[in-house]
Structures are given as structure tokens and as C-alpha cells.
């Protein structure tokens, strides 16, 4: 394999590992604020218990997100120097604003949020919690602005092959930004909703009868059931936006080779790029035309339109985009079915008497948000290829001239570490759940404010 492909895999591995944790912390920050506000409003101990359990998951996820994020800031220079050299005038200010308005805010107030409860007034602690959640969301905003600009660039001009910003409003509010931003925030919300529901279900299966677990399960299911329809709608609108600006990506997602009307919706196929056709295709007649153009005679773009005169392929590799898209949709449908079933069961049985089978299902779906989020990002990012910045900069023109062996060696190093850490991460979350479940048997499970009682059993930083 050459440096280009290896660098792409390495960047993909790094950013995939990284995005797992922000996806959790963005929405979990707001969820913690919700727990805290419920506690302030009701004074009910269960909200404190829920907060204390999930703040540990938050702290762990946040640390993982920070350290994997540092890697990202270096990857631009080590592997993709051409990126900043060409579009640095646009990407630079956006990244700078992310660091300055978001990273410091969340990092500093995280310390106060985690360890400052006994040192500051309650309202200051609530404010710190809010600022952390706000910081993660700001961070999402800026990075999505930059990413969206790479898909739908505008507000710039090219001088000697280098991009210069001409209109910052156009750059920030580029056509795909609102859709991508909403889609990502909802993805984070769903990831956290299913994580909370799943881990709470796990604790109930292990025999935890705490009020905090029941409430968390209820909150998780209701949030999931409320967000998933909005997400499906937002995803559909994002798709139509992509059709307008990146038709080659849509063609690859649909697995459609020839432009034309009455295009079927391909449910399953194995795209064969060499033969430029689908094998084992199962489709719904007129389906893609109906979804994308809202009429059976609607013309849907085909991949064969994106072959240059000299035969250069100007569309992404079809199979990865095609399959990632289907994995995302499949996970989304499973989320819809399970969360709405959960809602019905919640009304019928209440959170405390939920049958075991749906609890198992929620357990199994604990990390489904990760799968859908990664699949969605693979769809959109691989779908942009061969462009790094659509129509402006090709990926192959941005890669560094580091030797392939060096990239491969470090890639293997990263992969080993990432695999170990993901296992450790999931292991610790289940361990925390197990420990919290056991803790239920002790009658006094108090968290005195500022007092020293009852905390001897806690480890520092726990």
C-alpha cells in the first residue's frame, strides 16, 4: 500500500477513535446538567445518584476525547501538510476559534465541575456544568463548520492555487453546515440516550432496584424515542442537500450507475466497481426517484457521469459508501423500533417492572449510537473522495511525503492502542455499573455535600 492510502487509513483510524468520545460528551454534558437541575428543583436523592454515576462516565469519556483530540491537531501537519498550505486561510481561523472559544472553556470548567462541588457555591457548580456542556457544543459547531466547508466550500477565491477567504459569513454558513450540525447533535443525543438506557437496563438485569436507575432508564428511552424521528427527518433533509451539492456521493450511496428516471431504491447489492454494475441487487422500483425527487420520473444521478474524459474516476469508491450508508440506516431503524417499543412498555409496566427481554435488547443497543455515527461519517467522508475539499483540493495532493513504512508502523501502533483502550473503556463502564449495582445493598448510599462522612469507601478521583 502507498503512503496516500495508509495516511487515509491512519487519519480515519484516529478520527474514528476520537469521535466516539465527543459523541458521548456533547450530549452527556447536557444530560448531566438536566440531572443537576432536576436535583436542584426536586431535591430528590435519585437525581444526585444518577448524576454521580454518569459524571464518572463523563470524566472518563472526556479524558479520552481530549487526548485523542490532541492527536488530531498534529495529524494535519504530520500527514496532510498540503491541506493547510492550500486551505489554511479558511481552515486556520475556524480551528483557532474552536480552540479559543471551546477547548479552554470546557477544559477549565471541567476541573471545577468534577472536583469543585465542595469548594464552590452550588450555583457556581451548576454554572460550571452548563459551561462545560456549552463548550462541547461550541466545539462541535466550529469543527462542523470546517468539515461542512470542505464538502460545500464557498466564500473564498483561489489565487495561485491557494484559497483566500472573501466572505466569512458565507464560509461559516455554508450550504451543508446547518444540516450536518443538527444531524451530529442529534446523533450525539441518540448515542447518549441509548447508552443511558442500555447501562440502566444492564443494572436492572443485575438486580439494581435503585430509583436513580429507573429514572435513568425512563429518561434514556424517552429521549431516544423523541430524538429518532427528528433524526430521520434531519438525515433525509441532509441527503437532499447532498444531492444538490455532491451528486456523486448520492450516486454511490444509492449504488446507482446510470443517470435516469424511475431509479429503484437498492436495498441490498454488492457493487462491482470493475464491472460498473451491482450484483445480487434487491430493489424497490422507483424508490430512489421517489425519495430523492418525490416523483417516480425523477432523474437520479448515476456514477457513470463522474468519469473524466481521460478515464479518471471522479467518484468515491462505491462499496464502502454504499455499505456504510446501509449500516447507518439499519441501525437507525433498529433504534426507532426499540425506542418506541420501549415507550409503549414504559407506559404499560413502568420502568421498575420492565420485562427482561426488552432490557436485554436495550443492553445490546448500548453502543448502537457509536455504530450509526461512525457509519454516517464514513458515508459522508469517503463519499467526498477523491476530493479533500470538494472541487478545490484532491486528497492525493495534500498527503505528506513521509515513507509508507513509517505511516504503516505508526498506524499499527495507533490501532493496537485504540483497540486496547476501547476494550478498557467499555470494561470500566460495565465495572462501574456492576459496582453501583452492588452499592445498592448498603442502606446508606449518601453523598453528603462537603461533609466527610461516607466517602471513605470512595477512591480519589472516582
Amino acid at each position, binding site marked *: 500500500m502507498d503512503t496516500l492510502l495508509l495516511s487515509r487509513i491512519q487519519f480515519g483510524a484516529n478520527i474514528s477513535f476520537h469521535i466516539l468520545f465527543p459523541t458521548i460528551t456533547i450530549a452527556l454534558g447536557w444530560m448531566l446538567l438536566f440531572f443537576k437541575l432536576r436535583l436542584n428543583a426536586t431535591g430528590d436523592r435519585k437525581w444526585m445518584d444518577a448524576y454521580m454515576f454518569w459524571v464518572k462516565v463523563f470524566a472518563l469519556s472526556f479524558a479520552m476525547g481530549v487526548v*485523542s483530540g*490532541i492527536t488530531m491537531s498534529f495529524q494535519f501537519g504530520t500527514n496532510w501538510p498540503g491541506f493547510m498550505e492550500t486551505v*489554511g*486561510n479558511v481552515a486556520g481561523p475556524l480551528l483557532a476559534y474552536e480552540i479559543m472559544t471551546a477547548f479552554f472553556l470546557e477544559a*477549565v470548567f471541567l*476541573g471545577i465541575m468534577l472536583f469543585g462541588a465542595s469548594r464552590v457555591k452550588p450555583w457556581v457548580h451548576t454554572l460550571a456544568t452548563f459551561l462545560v456542556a456549552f463548550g462541547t457544543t461550541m466545539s462541535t459547531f466550529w469543527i462542523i463548520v470546517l468539515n461542512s466547508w470542505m464538502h460545500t466550500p464557498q466564500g473564498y477565491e483561489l489565487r495561485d492555487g491557494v484559497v483566500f477567504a472573501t466572505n466569512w459569513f458565507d464560509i461559516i454558513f455554508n450550504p451543508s453546515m446547518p444540516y450536518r450540525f443538527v444531524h451530529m447533535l442529534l446523533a450525539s443525543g441518540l448515542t447518549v440516550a441509548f447508552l443511558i438506557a442500555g447501562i440502566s437496563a444492564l443494572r436492572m438485569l443485575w438486580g439494581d432496584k435503585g430509583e436513580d436507575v429507573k429514572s435513568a432508564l425512563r429518561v434514556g428511552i424517552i429521549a431516544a424515542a423523541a430524538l429518532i424521528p427528528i433524526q430521520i427527518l434531519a438525515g433525509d433533509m441532509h441527503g437532499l442537500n447532498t444531492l444538490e451539492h455532491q451528486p456523486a456521493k448520492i450516486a454511490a450511496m444509492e449504488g446507482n450507475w446510470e443517470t435516469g428516471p424511475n431509479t429503484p431504491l437498492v436495498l441490498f447489492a454488492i457493487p462491482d466497481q470493475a464491472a460498473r454494475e451491482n450484483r445480487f441487487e434487491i430493489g424497490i422500483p422507483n424508490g430512489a426517484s421517489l425519495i430523492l425527487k418525490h416523483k417516480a420520473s425523477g432523474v437520479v444521478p448515476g456514477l457513470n457521469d463522474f468519469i473524466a474524459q481521460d478515464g479518471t474516476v471522479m467518484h468515491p469508491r462505491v462499496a464502502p459508501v454504499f455499505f456504510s450508508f446501509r449500516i447507518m440506516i439499519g441501525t437507525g431503524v433498529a433504534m426507532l423500533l426499540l425506542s418506541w417499543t420501549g415507550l409503549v412498555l414504559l407506559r404499560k409496566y413502568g420502568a421498575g417492572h420492565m420485562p427482561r427481554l426488552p432490557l436485554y435488547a436495550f443492553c445490546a443497543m448500548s453502543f448502537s449510537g457509536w455504530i450509526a455515527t461512525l457509519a454516517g461519517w464514513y458515508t459522508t467522508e469517503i463519499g467526498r473522495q477523491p476530493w479533500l475539499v470538494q472541487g478545490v483540493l484532491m486528497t492525493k495532493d495534500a498527503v505528506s511525503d513521509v515513507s509508507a513504512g513509517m505511516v504503516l508502523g505508526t498506524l499499527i501502533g495507533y490501532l493496537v492502542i485504540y483497540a486496547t483502550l476501547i476494550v478498557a473503556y467499555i470494561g470500566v463502564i460495565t*465495572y462501574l455499573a456492576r459496582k453501583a449495582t452492588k452499592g445498592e445493598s448498603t442502606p446508606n448510599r449518601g453523598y*453528603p455535600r462537603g461533609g466527610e462522612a461516607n*466517602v471513605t469507601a470512595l477512591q480519589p478521583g472516582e
Partner: protein
Amino acid sequence: MDMFGDPAVWLPWTFAALMGLSILIYVVLDGFDLGVGLLMPLAGEDEKDRLVASIGPFWDANETWLVLAVGLLLVAFPPAHGIILTALYLPVFVMLVGLILRGVSFEMRAKAPITQKRMWNSAFFAGSLMASLSQGFMLGMYIMGLTWKLPNIAFATLTAVFLTVGYSFIGAAWLIWKTEDQLQRRAIRWAKGGIWGLVMGIVAISVATPFVSTRIFDKWFSLPEIFYLAPLPILSGALVAFVWWQLSRLPLQNDRWSWTPFAAAIALFSLAYGGMAYSFYPYIVPEKITIYDAASAPESLFIILIGTLFVLPAILGYTMLSYYIFRGKATALRYN
């Protein structure tokens, strides 16, 4: 934009200064928490938690200064960013892995089953060591002009060791300030054991830098510059003597002066850093590319600068708030 003269001159200068400041703040702040990580194996099992507790509320924000420094290099001097980081590909990788290990084990050591705690403690130390060594190595390579030749690598290995020991010194100085009783007395011993790293590092860099380039040599050893610059080494020497004297008489009653080794360590790092900055200016890639050649378009820099003027004071403000809230001796980390 034209208020201060040609924006293609003052904007790159301003950004070089901002980036330099971020790197210095990073070296001091993450220096002490990396240093605390390096001291972990020397601490008793019961003391390790206190070591971690002393940096708990801060380490996250400390590392953000690295992101800001690299971010400024990235946004203000894109070609230099590419050249420097491509040349330092391997040490950057080692540093990143070290920082990942460190950050993760910081959380894991407290949350994973108690049987794994030793393992995560080791990972915390290993991560700190990898990050410190690679940063020192990169410093050496940078001074030697970023070329992978054997003498350069040998020098970089030397600076790697010195910076690591220097970090352990500032970490120990931090602990003298933030801990008490027996642990504080041990920290004083560690500081005595580590100060040579910083001194040797400063000496090695001061000796080597002028011989790498005649330009730097002339900047230091010509009249009248040599008189303006004389306070730098003299002050550094005085500070080292002061630290040594303090370490020999601490701890004092009522914990008086316990903050002085840390303050002196900051001053020493800053002086050494200032000297280096003076040597390399105006080059950002040593002897190859100046900050003026490498700078982004003035329009883009200006947009960032406006934001910086509003945001940086706020960042400094709430960073100080955080250090104020967690003032005094370190206490056990608790979420409630």
C-alpha cells in the same frame, strides 16, 4: 489593519509572539504535571493518590495550551507546520501515544477494578515518560535544524534526558507547594535530585545553539548585544543558587516560602525559553524559513487576532479562577 504599519510584518510577529507564549505556558504548566507523573514510581503507594490529586483539576486545561500552540503554528504558519511536523513524525507519534496513555490512565487508575490500579499507575508513569522524552528530543532536533544526522540525534537524546529530569524538578517544586508533611519533605529531596537536569539542559542548549549557526553566534557575542544579554545568564545563575538555598532550608514553619521553588522554576524555564526565542528569531524553521515567509494571509490572521483579543483575557481569567478555587494544599479528588 494598517494602523501599526505593514500588516505583513506586525501580524506574523504578533502571532509568533502568541505562539511562543502558548508554548512557554504549555511547557511550564504541563511541565509540572508531566513531572508529577514522572515522580510516581518514587512515591509510596499511599502517596500516589495525593500526587495525582494535586494535578487533577488542572491537567486537562494544561494540555489545551499544547493544542493552542500547535493550532497557532498550524493556522498562522502553515508551511512551517508541515515541515516541522513531517520532520518530527516519529517523536510526535511517541508523544501522542504518551499523552493518550497518561490521560486515560489518570481516569482508569481511579475507576477500574482495584486490582488493575498498579498497571494503570505504571501506564501513567510510562505515558509521562514518553511525552517528556519525546518533547525533549524534539527540542534538540529543532535546535539542530531538524535534520536526522547522527550527531543531531545524539544531542537530541541528551536534551530528551535533560528536559525529562527538568520536568521532574518543576513537578517536585509544584508538590513542595501543594503538599505537606512527609510527602512535602520527599518532594524537596526529589527537587534537589532533579534540578541538575534543568541546569544541564540550559547549559547544553546555550553552548550548542551558537555553534549551530554563526548568525546566532553573532547575535549573542557581539558588542553591544553581549551587555544587554548578560543579565539573562546572570539571573539564571542567581535563580539556581536561590532554589538550592531554599531547598536546603525548607520546610519552614507555617509553610512559609513553600511556593518559592515553583516560582523560581517558572522563572528559570521562562529565561531559558526567552534566550532560545531570541536566538531563533526571525526563523520559524531554523535557518530556513522566517515567520514572515511562512505566515498565512494577513486577512485570515487578522480575523483570528480579533477573536484572540477578546478570548485570551477570558481564558487567562477563568484559568486563574480555577487555580484560585483549588488553592492551598491538594486534597483528595471527589466528585461531590
